[in-house]
């Protein structure tokens, strides 16, 4: 997003007046104008509405008539124990998914890359992509039908004399369930970008390493993974920026089944406290806090990437 404001290849030079530069770059400027307009109208102008976070806002009297109350809403957000619980849950879920979900597409992509028959490869690819297109309602229902207390597994177990199996309502295993659902639904979709990165690896590098006597593992370690590294870092940073967003639908659908102690995350918290209770100002304040923390995470991670010599998401021109 930030990169868009300074198009690469046109570093500003102070001595040339902007009218001249505008004339020189007019083709580029015209080309970028629709995107800027789109962003302005649908992203930046609505952002002005965030002003309600500093108001005791009521939609029936409007922004103009609602009184300003300073930082009171932010104070309420930050001192609300439920908000802090929601933040904690969100971070735990993000951490677990980072460890158990994030590497899955990489491994899958590497495995798939080693399948030589193009027909087989396309078939596998299509099959693992498919669940991505199911809505969360369907995914949760499928899991309920299989792992729920009246589901397939429980019924088979009951026939075999074991009762009481119900994975869907067990708060202790909820993290695993959540991650399993994410893997099932989105791991296949996640491999696309890694496959694309793998396709760019120069085959001569492999040939050269074979000539040097590198085996399968050494080739992966010294050729494939270094080629993937910038993409992995990029996605990791973007994921960190999303750290406070862990899937609203998936959680709201299962919140009642396992309870708020483990399933209340920031997005569901904002929805219930803000939208359901009509406390729009409170919701806006909570949303802003979340946005700020996410921004800090992205900037921090990007900085870290620069320190270890990676390109990261963007660089200063």
């Amino acid at each position, binding site marked *: 997003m930030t990169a868009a404001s300074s198009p690469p290849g046109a570093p500003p030079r102070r001595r040339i007046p902007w009218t001249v530069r505008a004339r020189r770059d007019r083709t580029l400027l015209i080309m970028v104008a629709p995107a800027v307009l789109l962003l302005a109208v649908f992203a930046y102008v609505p952002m002005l509405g965030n002003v309600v976070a500093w108001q*005791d806002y*009521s*939609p*029936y*009297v409007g922004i103009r008539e*609602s*009184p300003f*109350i300073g930082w009171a809403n932010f104070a309420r957000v930050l001192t609300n124990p*439920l908000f802090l619980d929601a933040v904690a849950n969100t971070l735990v879920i993000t951490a677990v998914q980072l460890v158990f979900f994030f590497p899955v597409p990489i491994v899958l992509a590497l495995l798939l890359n080693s399948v030589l028959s193009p027909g087989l490869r396309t078939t596998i690819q299509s099959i693992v992509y498919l669940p991505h297109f199911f809505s969360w309602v369907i995914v949760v229902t499928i899991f*309920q039908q299989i792992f*729920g*207390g*009246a*589901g397939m597994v*429980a*019924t088979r177990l*009951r*026939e075999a004399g074991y*009762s009481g199996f*119900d994975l*869907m*309502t067990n*708060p202790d295993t909820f993290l695993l369930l959540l991650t399993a659902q994410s893997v099932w639904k989105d791991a296949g979709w996640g491999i696309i970008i890694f496959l694309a990165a793998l396709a760019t690896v120069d085959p001569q590098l492999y040939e050269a390493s074979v000539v040097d006597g590198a085996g399968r593992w050494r080739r992966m370690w010294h050729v494939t993974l270094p080629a993937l590294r910038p993409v992995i870092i990029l996605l990791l940073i973007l994921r960190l920026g999303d750290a406070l967003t862990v899937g609203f639908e998936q959680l709201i659908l*299962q*919140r*009642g*089944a*396992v*309870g*708020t*102690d483990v399933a209340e995350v920031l997005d569901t918290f904002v929805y*219930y*406290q803000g*939208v*359901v*209770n*009509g*406390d729009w100002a409170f919701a806006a304040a909570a949303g802003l806090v979340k946005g700020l923390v996410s921004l800090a995470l992205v900037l921090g991670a990007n900085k870290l990437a620069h320190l270890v010599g990676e390109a990261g998401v963007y660089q200063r021109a």
Partner: protein
Amino acid sequence: MTAPHLAGGLSRRSFLGFLAVGAGVVGVPSLLTACTSGPASTAQGGGTVSSGVLPTYVPVEYVKPDFPSVNGSTAGYASIPEELVTAFATPPGSGGTYSAMTPLWSAIPKTSGNPYFDAVSEAMGTTVEFQISDGNTYGDKLAAVLASAKDVPDWVCVPTWNFPPRFAQAVDALFEDLTPYLSGDNVKKYKNLANIPTDAWRFGVFNDKLYGLPFPGELVHLATFYRADLLAELGITEQPKTADEFIELAKELTDPGKKRWGSADQWITANMMFAVPPEKGWKLADDGSLVSRVESEEYRAALDWQARLYKSGAVHPTAVADKPEEMKPLFESGEILIVNDGVGGWHESLGRVLPSNPDFDPRPFDPFAHDGGTPRIWKGAPADMFSFLKKRDDKAQIEELLAAADFLASPFGTTEFQLVNFGVEGEHYEIDGDGLPQATDAAADDVAPSYIFLVDPPKVNAQVQFEGYVEAYCTWMADASQYVEEPLFYGKQITEPSQFASLGTPFVDLEKDIARGRKTLADLDDAVETWRSSGGEELRAFYQGILDEQ
């Protein structure tokens, strides 16, 4: 299909929200008072109604009911009278066209070129163009529409469980004050509106002005249904008489190997058995002080009982997984044998299931108290929904809309009622040899209950097409009526200050957690403590103010 509430898959939140109406639905008063007032000012939001605001009650009756009302229970009819009365010799409207927004809990019909809508428009002399939305998500749509004044249709249905916070403010800003048109004897110009009981009107008063056209409610509006056909098959004829007997029965019925569970979630049953004050409600302690629902021993006992029920293993796993929208299908397929529902759910399920399973026979349990003593049932709200007319300068248009409302409020026994509820005779229904209307195929496509959500005559049961149903329904409610009591603040349209809007939220989650054994009653004590310190005491003072004014 006259009772859409609780139909379909209302979320449990809204489902339970329905309990709230017993006490007085809670919206939110003027923002400024909410911010500046220290001790809550009672003049605001207290549901006070000055004399002279309410319409005069002039009852009309066209047909004597076969099952008359007892203590206010719903009266019923066994057949359609052969001679219908025509209440309006000429169409009352003057040819205007108005938009209207209503919910619907079934497939949405086409709204233009629909012979049913066209026929009603012609008979009414006023065209209503419907914008129909799915009832389960109606509240979401409504919140957005009301927040944008220019998108508000001419006539809007607002179910009481969908009142958004700060609703009283919205009503003032958006809708026409009907007091000058309907107060006192003014209503006599509209004879069918005058036939609507005063309680229903009082409930539609906001900020001491009459705004809402009511969809009247029923004396008893919730019940615990069991599958009488399946219980008989299992040889069980005894109904439970105590809370413990209920759990015993539910356990006895449960056989997971046969895919059969005794019970769904029974929070409503628990509330009824223990006579828990309605949601957001209060009761008077022996010393005359106000005790909130969440502080009451009844609430605590009901929670404890739910936890025992869940622990017994008799609750269907889908209910444990908190999927309230799945309960009706599971009940209808026989996987669950006891469920909670609104009383209107009874004939709705008959309509859905009888064609494929003629033995299907849901019945409500007779009321019972947890200890086997005399049951107490909280009186249902006087109105379940309201419709509002958008503010406009042209008074003639308001009068035309009220004339249309008068037409739509025509009671059972009139050709108008027949048209509004069943469609056009010969096209949408035929009267069979027993005097019962039989719907045609065209009815399924065209006739969707929509006008009734704008305004409805006082409730009667005229679902004559199901054999024996009306009698069973009316007998059951007549019997239950002896136990009915008005909860505190009954029928008052109370608007709580907005800062209290989220006070109750933790309890909704706690109710689920305690039932499923994830939390204990000790957590309830903590939650009540938090509730008291974060605004509960001020809320008590607010209600005390209202009580003192009564």
